[in-house]
């Protein structure tokens, strides 16, 4: 074991190296000695003067978040000034007394203030000011400012409060802001490493656009330096010019210009909260321009994001969390629902393209269809007689589409529905979008573990069974039908602007695919004439003599669309035809309406889901009409014909409603 010995020659070899080490250590010692001499003895007096005269305190100037503007530049999300009270542990020499005095002004218990400050001191060190209360009112601000002179460490700071002028309207779209939580702190610092450093107490976007666009909206906090006296009180408000400390102003975040139109957004919210015999709707609405620009995005019931900006109370929070209609959820994309009869246009397109029927094919549509050992019912107890696909769509015949389901099978229907954008995420830049579901036999075998049953072709062909779609998907797909092929990616942000209103980033319409052309040789596609047929049938829904949405018209502008009513539990004859509004709320049908205008070539498409409103024709269709009307009034007032004076609005009779 040679390593155990220290061979003579190698030991000799080592000697000069030891010498070298001694020299290195000696040299460093000399350099350090010289440097310390220079700093502490040559420069010492000067630097001592600095340290005594100038006790520079760093103050963080929070950067305002970027504004969110509508397409015309009107403010949708704003910033307002506010005040908060803090105590700096390092200067709070008489903490108990201070807590007593502050507690009396703010209505807080002195013990909790003392405890708060001590905990933070242990956890974050004595330098970080501890927030005692935010969102002070002016009276509190004045009284605290008077206390400040007797209570070192106490401070009143200006802060920025996020303000949402539309209140609950669009709350799920814009999102809300709140203090960063402990586990978010770690996640965010990893996600934005190298870009931002998040600290406890920072305000971040917690949902909606505020969250998705955090990187853009977030500004950079500024720094200013103030001189403080030995008790930590600010001695001078002027920033001392001191050893090159230049204050750095806060850089506000960049502004977002949305595709949203504030007028349409407001009209949509009013329409959703319609006061008619059904009452304010619970559900989701999305309005989209033909090129994918979203004009309005509403979820009801909603919440007021301003409550979060001003510190939400635990009571209000638990109320929001426990509300069965889940006001915090973005139902436009975050929840999917059975589309019911609004699925029929896709089945019709599939049937025409697959040549199962032609535009002229006439099929009997009795009150029910016997298939297997079950009766599949129509909503009409008398049936619809002999109908073509145009009439079947106009009156929303179930039996006609049961027959289509049998003839095509769900696998074929699924192929064409997916072509138009169903069963997949639309690609809108928002968090938590669900893909919905367009089932086929392969899916069922995998997900349920059972083979596809022939009877399921019938229920799924009328949009029940397994089929699930989101309101946004429906708007995208109907828009594609209206345009005869192109499927657009919906988008919300047109431009990112900096503080000088220079455009930093711009977004443009994007066609994801064209359903009228096969992507590759042999891929499914739909011929233009079939789009024409289905478009005509949807025009009849809104305008035909027996159209299920014929009550809702705009004089001068022709609309097209399709109603849908989805059963919550089963769909026996009794379920389908029984009086819906006599049932408990949570068992009532959902109503859908997806429509566009003008009928010949859409400019705007609106999808509305009105949960538990019993029927699409009365629950959802009038809302779509109101929104399209608001759009036309703004952009094409010349097209509108003046309405006859005092013409009473005709309401659908209940038996007609139950499509």
């Amino acid at each position, binding site marked *: 074991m*040679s*390593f*155990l*010995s*220290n061979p003579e*020659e*190698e030991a000799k*070899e*080592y*000697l000069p*190296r*030891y010498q070298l*080490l*001694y020299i*290195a*250590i*000696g040299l*460093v*010692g000399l350099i*350090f*000695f010289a*440097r*310390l*001499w220079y*700093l*502490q*003895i040559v*420069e*010492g*007096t*000067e*630097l*001592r003067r*600095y*340290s*005594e005269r100038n*006790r*520079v*305190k*760093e103050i963080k100037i929070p950067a305002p978040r970027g504004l969110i503007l509508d397409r015309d530049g009107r403010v949708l999300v704003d910033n307002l000034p506010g005040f908060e009270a803090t105590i700096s*542990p*390092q200067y709070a*020499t008489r903490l108990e007394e201070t807590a007593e005095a502050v507690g009396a002004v703010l209505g807080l218990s002195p013990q909790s203030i003392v405890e708060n400050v*001590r905990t933070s001191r*242990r956890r974050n060190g*004595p*330098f970080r000011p501890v927030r005692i209360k935010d969102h002070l009112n002016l009276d509190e601000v004045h009284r605290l400012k008077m206390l400040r002179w007797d209570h070192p460490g106490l401070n009143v700071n200006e802060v920025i409060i996020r303000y949402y002028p539309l209140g609950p309207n669009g709350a799920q779209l814009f999102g809300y802001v709140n203090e960063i939580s402990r586990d978010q702190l*770690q996640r965010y*610092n*990893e996600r934005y*490493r*190298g870009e931002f*450093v998040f600290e406890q107490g920072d305000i971040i976007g917690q949902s909606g656009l505020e969250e998705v666009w955090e990187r853009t909206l977030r500004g950079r906090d500024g*720094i200013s330096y103030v001189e*403080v006296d*030995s008790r930590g009180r600010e001695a001078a408000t002027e920033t001392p010019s001191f*050893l*090159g*400390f230049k204050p*750095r102003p806060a850089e506000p975040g960049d502004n977002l210009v949305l595709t949203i139109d504030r007028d349409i957004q407001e009209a949509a919210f009013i329409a959703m909260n319609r006061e008619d015999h059904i009452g304010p709707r619970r559900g989701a609405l999305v309005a989209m321009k033909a090129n994918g620009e979203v004009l309005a995005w509403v979820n009801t019931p909603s919440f007021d994001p301003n409550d979060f900006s001003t510190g939400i109370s635990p009571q209000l929070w638990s109320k929001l969390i426990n509300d069965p209609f889940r006001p915090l959820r973005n139902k436009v994309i975050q929840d999917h629902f059975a589309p019911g009869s609004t699925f029929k246009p896709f089945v019709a397109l599939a049937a025409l393209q697959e040549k199962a029927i032609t535009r002229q094919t006439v099929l009997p549509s009795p009150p029910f269809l016997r298939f297997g050992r079950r009766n599949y019912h129509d909503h009409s107890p008398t049936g619809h007689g002999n109908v073509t696909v145009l009439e079947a769509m106009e009156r929303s015949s179930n039996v006609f589409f049961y027959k289509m389901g049998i003839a095509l099978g769900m696998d074929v229907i699924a192929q064409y529905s997916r072509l138009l954008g169903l069963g997949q995420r639309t690609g809108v830049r928002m968090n938590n979008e669900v893909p919905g579901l367009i089932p086929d036999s392969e899916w069922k075998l995998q997900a349920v573990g059972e083979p596809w049953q022939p009877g399921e072709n019938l229920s799924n062909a009328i949009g029940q069974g397994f089929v699930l779609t989101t309101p946004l998907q429906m708007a995208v797909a109907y828009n594609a039908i209206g345009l005869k092929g192109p499927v657009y990616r919906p988008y919300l942000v047109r431009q990112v602007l900096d503080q000088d209103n220079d455009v930093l980033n711009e977004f443009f319409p994007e066609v994801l695919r064209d359903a009228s052309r096969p992507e590759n040789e042999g891929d499914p596609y739909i011929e233009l004439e079939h789009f024409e047929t289905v478009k005509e049938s949807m025009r009849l829904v809104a305008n035909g003599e027996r159209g299920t949405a014929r009550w809702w018209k705009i004089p001068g502008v022709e609309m097209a669309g399709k109603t849908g009513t989805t059963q919550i539990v089963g769909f026996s004859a009794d379920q389908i035809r029984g009086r819906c509004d006599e049932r408990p709320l949570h068992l009532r049908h959902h109503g859908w309406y997806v429509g566009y205008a003008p009928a010949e070539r859409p400019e705007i498409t609106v999808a509305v889901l009105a949960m538990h409103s019993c029927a699409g024709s009365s629950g959802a269709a009038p809302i779509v009409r109101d929104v399209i009307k608001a759009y036309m009034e703004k952009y094409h007032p010349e097209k509108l014909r003046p309405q006859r004076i005092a013409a009473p609005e005709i309401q659908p009779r209940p038996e007609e409603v139950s499509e």
Partner: protein
Amino acid sequence: MKANQVPAALQVEERTFLSRIDLNFALVILALNIIGLINLYSATHGVHVDGTSRLFWLQMAWLALGWAVFFVVTFIDYQWFYRLAYGLYALNLGALIAVKYFGTASYGAQRWLDLGFFRYQPSETMKLIMVIVLARILCQHSSLQGLGFRKLAIPLALLAIPFILTVRQPDLGTAMMLMGVGGALFLFVKVKRSILLGGVLTLLVAAPLVWNYGLKEYQKNRILTFLSPDRDPRGTGYNSIQSRIAVGSGRILGKGFRKGTQSQLEFLPERHTDFIFSVLSEEHGFIGSVTTVGLFMVLLIMGIKVATQARDKFGALLVIGVVAYLFLHMVVNVGMVIGLLPIVGVPLPLLSYGGSSLLATMAGLGLVSSVAYRRYLF
């Protein structure tokens, strides 16, 4: 073992354990410990006392444990570490990898393993384990001609793995220390001139590449800021200027215990860890700073002396490794505080707060003491 066959050692066996320990060595360490504690007390307690700080008590506990480790390591024959080298390396490497997946992060870096009662920083102990591993490999491979490329390959690879893991945390300071300690050992056992030249050339070529692609924005900023502190008054330049003012304003005798206005009132971040020396300089002045630096010098020189007397090559290399470890930390840390070097997150051994670093340092000093305990007595 072989020690029994050496007559000189036989005589020594009759002496008691304690008298064989190099008492002066232990006393210098103790002196630095005491300075460290006094200083830490000041750094963790503002002008207004609010009970004794938790950090201070923790450090006391670590110190007690550190001394226990010191004595245990002293009495263990260091040949045991020769045998345990790879095992220890594997364990520590495992911990480093665990950090990547289960580690806790703060200040944007993931460096710690939360063991419940304390947060263990594997990269700190890795520096010491690296010394043991390299000492083992190099004492077998060194020759008068210097190390060739083939013999360097394995130790370089063993060094590179923890280096890369640490850089990725990211913790450039600790990674550089690992490299520094390894490099010092290589140079000490002599590397062939051609390889040395090649290494320097590679470094010259690699440096601009690393600058452009390898460094994070904040790391570049720190180096740029060092070159011109006015560049970013908020960022690292602020620390550098404040630290220099703190040191300089101490003048000859200092402002006195817990009277340092810079460290007590101003924002001197990390003042109980990386900037601890500025607290000392401000409160105890030129006298205090020079005494402390002087004590470090004495400690290092005593270490080198132990190496010259080591019974075998492994022992000598162990000691040289520990000396290099202490020396590099001291130079980089103090150099940074007094504005001679850029700001790098490296603790000052025995003075900075931190359990992992303190334990590793005390264990390292224990190794030196262990080699001294079994040295030739001429």
